[in-house]
């Protein structure tokens, strides 16, 4: 059934090419094609989710095509629990984003073509069996996102502010990608291949030298840290999300950040156990700073999108903490949070985008009384805020518990301090999120506020309902996703926990 996975990943790209090849394609046609293509991806992802064998270790649906046989690079895709999570996230956000991309009016053919390419890039990075192609697809994203923000973004400052925000993001994320490339080149030197499964085996039978592990861990943590907007490499994120058009900020904050987390969980943590254990304290400290600093700055924001941008930085801290726990529980928590947090952030950006689209402003206070003026938007905003806070019933709750438990299990004093800080971070995030909800949804309607109509059509409501439904579903039935995640996290966790063979015996 490899073909299902291949179509899932490459389908959006094929649709993008189709769009460019049809010269007369109008905006409406392109929009429908984009919705259809991402819808197909979502449907196939559901099929993969159903067919996924929850009792097996390792990658499933694996396809391979020799690409550069001299260097041992195969082009191919595969899924395990971790990538299943990331692919589900991507497919959901991509479909919702395509539906919510009503704010694109000019040159929509180019927009949707780039957007679909972006989707394939993320899916490719999440499913590549060969780490060369992980880099290949991740770097590919940089290009698309720049053009999308520069071409269709806008900031209240006007002028070329949006373009500059896009360029800053591109340079930061590009630098991150290049750092990971250097790490991957060193990894190949140590392990002799770019194939992830083979590298895992090699790292088990002959752990890489400690010095090399440390060097690679630093490169990966810095490189993926940029994508994850880890402090102090986060400065690009809030302005870029704020500048991007709705669909792109959903995708950027929801999915692209996930590439950083995915990279740490897929490459750094399992392949470099000693190097990452050496790095873990720094990672925990950075995670703690992210949580508190992001939340602190978010408290002061009056602009919805900037508030969400900083909230997303705060969220990244939990992901870092989960990775730093260096155990299967923490990793699973981080992976599940990538899904839950990503969906909630994307939903929030979609809602704010819809409000901005109508009113042309995005001051939190300008939407006072939203609950009465536009009940659907108001209810969705409250629900999304609660999901982002990680209240019980939403996916975020489970993942926060897992991250905190994993961090506590790790046992070191520093980690426990970080966990306590993380819990306090939840209080801070309740403060900014509920504050925003109070000012932006409840309260008396401001008579001077710009007119705002509710979303009434089913098609218009679909993206919000879909994302909320999935968040609730995984909140009540987390095991649907956490079982496969935990299985793959356990299977790649430190050798002492694995029972296959006797690792380390044939060490020279």
């Amino acid at each position, binding site marked *: 059934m490899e073909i299902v996975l291949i179509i899932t990943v490459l389908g959006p790209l094929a649709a993008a090419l189709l769009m460019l090849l049809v010269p007369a394609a109008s905006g409406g046609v392109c929009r429908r094609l984009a919705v259809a293509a991402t819808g197909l991806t979502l449907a196939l992802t559901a099929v993969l989710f159903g067919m996924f064998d929850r009792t097996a270790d390792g990658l499933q649906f694996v396809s391979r095509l020799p*690409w*550069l*046989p*001299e260097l041992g690079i195969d082009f191919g895709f595969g899924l395990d629990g971790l990538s299943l999570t990331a692919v589900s996230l991507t497919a959901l956000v991509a479909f919702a984003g395509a539906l919510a991309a009503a704010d694109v009016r000019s040159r929509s053919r180019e927009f949707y073509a780039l957007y679909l390419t972006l989707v394939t890039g993320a899916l490719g990075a999440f499913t590549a069996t060969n780490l060369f192609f992980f880099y290949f697809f991740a770097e*590919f994203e940089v290009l698309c996102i720049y*053009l999308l923000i520069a071409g269709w973004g806008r900031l209240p400052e006007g002028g070329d502010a949006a373009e500059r925000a896009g360029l800053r993001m591109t340079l930061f994320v590009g630098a991150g990608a290049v750092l990971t490339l250097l790490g991957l080149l060193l990894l190949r*030197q140590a392990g002799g291949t770019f194939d992830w499964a083979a590298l895992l085996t090699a790292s088990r039978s002959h752990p890489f030298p400690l010095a090399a592990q440390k060097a690679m861990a630093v490169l990966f943590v810095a490189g993926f840290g940029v994508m994850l907007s880890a402090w102090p490499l986060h400065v690009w994120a809030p302005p870029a999300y704020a500048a991007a058009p709705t669909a792109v900020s959903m995708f950027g904050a929801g999915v692209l950040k996930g590439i950083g987390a995915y990279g740490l969980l897929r490459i750094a943590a399992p392949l470099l156990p000693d190097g990452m254990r050496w790095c873990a304290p720094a990672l925990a400290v950075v995670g703690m700073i992210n949580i508190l600093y992001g939340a602190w700055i978010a408290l002061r924001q009056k602009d919805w999108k900037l508030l969400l941008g900083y909230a997303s930085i705060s969220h990244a801290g939990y992901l870092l903490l989960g990775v730093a726990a260096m155990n299967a529980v923490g990793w699973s928590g981080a992976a599940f949070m990538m899904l839950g947090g990503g969906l909630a952030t994307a939903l929030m950006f979609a809602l704010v985008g819809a409000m901005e689209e109508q009113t042309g402003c995005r001051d939190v206070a300008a939407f006072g009384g939203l609950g009465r003026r536009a009940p659907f938007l108001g209810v969705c905003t409250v629900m999304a805020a609660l999901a982002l806070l990680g209240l019980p019933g939403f996916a975020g709750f489970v993942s926060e518990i897992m991250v905190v438990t994993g961090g506590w299990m790790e046992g070191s004093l520093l980690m426990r301090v970080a966990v306590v800080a993380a819990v306090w971070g939840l209080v801070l995030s309740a403060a900014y999120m509920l504050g925003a909800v109070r000012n932006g949804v409840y309260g008396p309607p401001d008579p001077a506020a710009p007119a705002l109509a509710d979303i009434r059509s089913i098609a218009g409501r679909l993206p919000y309902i879909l994302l909320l439904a999935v968040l609730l579903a995984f909140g009540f039935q987390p095991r649907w996703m956490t079982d496969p995640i935990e299985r793959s996290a356990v299977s790649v966790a430190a050798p002492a926990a694995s029972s296959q063979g006797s690792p380390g015996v044939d060490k020279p």
Partner: protein
Amino acid sequence: MMDLYSIQLEVLLVLLGALALVARAVRPGLNPRWLGGALAVAAGALFLYSFTLSPAAAPAFKGLCRLDSAALFFKRLLLGGTVIALVVAMEFPALRSAAVECFALMLFAAAGMLLLASVNDFVLLFVALELVTICFFAMTSLLRQDPAGLEAGMKYLIMGALSASLTIYGIAYIYGATGHTQFDGVRVAMSNGAAAAYRFGFLLVLIGIGFKAAMVPLQVWAPDVYQGGPTPAVAFLASGSKVAGFVLLLRLAAAGLIPAEGGWLILLAWLAGITLLYGTLGALGQTDLKRLLGYSSIAHAGYLLMGLAVGTPVGRTAMACYLVQYMFTVLAAFLVVSVIGTATGNTDGRGLAGLHRRSPFAAFALFLAMMSLAGVPPLSGAVAKFLVLLEVVRMGSANGTYYVLAGVGAASVVISLAFYFSILRAALVAPDNGAERIELSVPTRLALVVCVIVMIGLGVWPAPLLQAASGLLP
């Protein structure tokens, strides 16, 4: 007869150039565009014909040159580049009366480049190098009414003369130290330790060739000449001439003439790093596309030198792959430069504005070329950079300098995104000034299609190229 077999492509190119000059003398009214088209077709036929040739086992002309498989590989590449450069020239109306001379000079220069690909003797090396350089002296000053063009020609002339004198001086030292000018003889003579005189001579030759390749320390001419020179001449200078310079360096390296001792490879690594940084940092803030390509050309010389500096066959293979894709990427950029320069009279932001509407295909090709130069997947430039960096990092375990070099290469990739994206911004994002559409002529369109196919094809499916290039240069 075997001797002539080895240089038949060069002979045919020179005959073709002479034919162009005769045709102009006999029929002064001949439309230069038609003549250029005919010459491009003829050069294309030569390119196809070159696939019927097979490598000759023995060196020709008592060892002056050899048509081995590597020579044939690069001759095909250079011929392909010549065809596209001729298309640039035929569609460049500003040349006017000088058009036919430009075609002829291009063909003569191409003959010199092809000869460089098979050179096996320092004397022939110098002659072929000068054949190329002198043709370019004339080509860069073809626009006699344009002060910027004349200035460019003058700068190229002075630097070229300097490099030629360094080269010949170095060859004299090499001959003095070894008693040979043929590569094989030189290698045998220095096999038990290179004399100091040889090393000095080789350094001078390296710097002299570095002029063609636009590498430090003879790189300063590139931005000025690229900006001021006539676009067809610059296009050929940036593609053919540069590639030929590196092919020559590859041959010298493969012939074992780089002294093994004394940290020569480390010197090359330093040169590569400095060249790379000079080009990358210089390109920041440039708004004129031609000038930016001049700095970018220096930066790429740095990447190419990396492949040489590792001193391994794998590195040389990576460099050969890099050269193939670079040729077509640069030509794609210059085809677009030529189109917008002709249509709007300038090649900075004003000329680029609204390109996506005025000529979607040219904008698409420029987009791919910039991304390929920047090394963004899935374009050919990304694969080439990856191959080079892979080998540089691999050699890092032998000498830490290579780790530094890889770091410099990686940093430059990021910095270069800033200026390549600034071009894209001007062409794709910046406000459209409402200028009229640009219609691409059929030859330009065809040439762009070829370049686009190469850029995407080699990026998506590089295995055949890597197979063809590996093992060429032991």
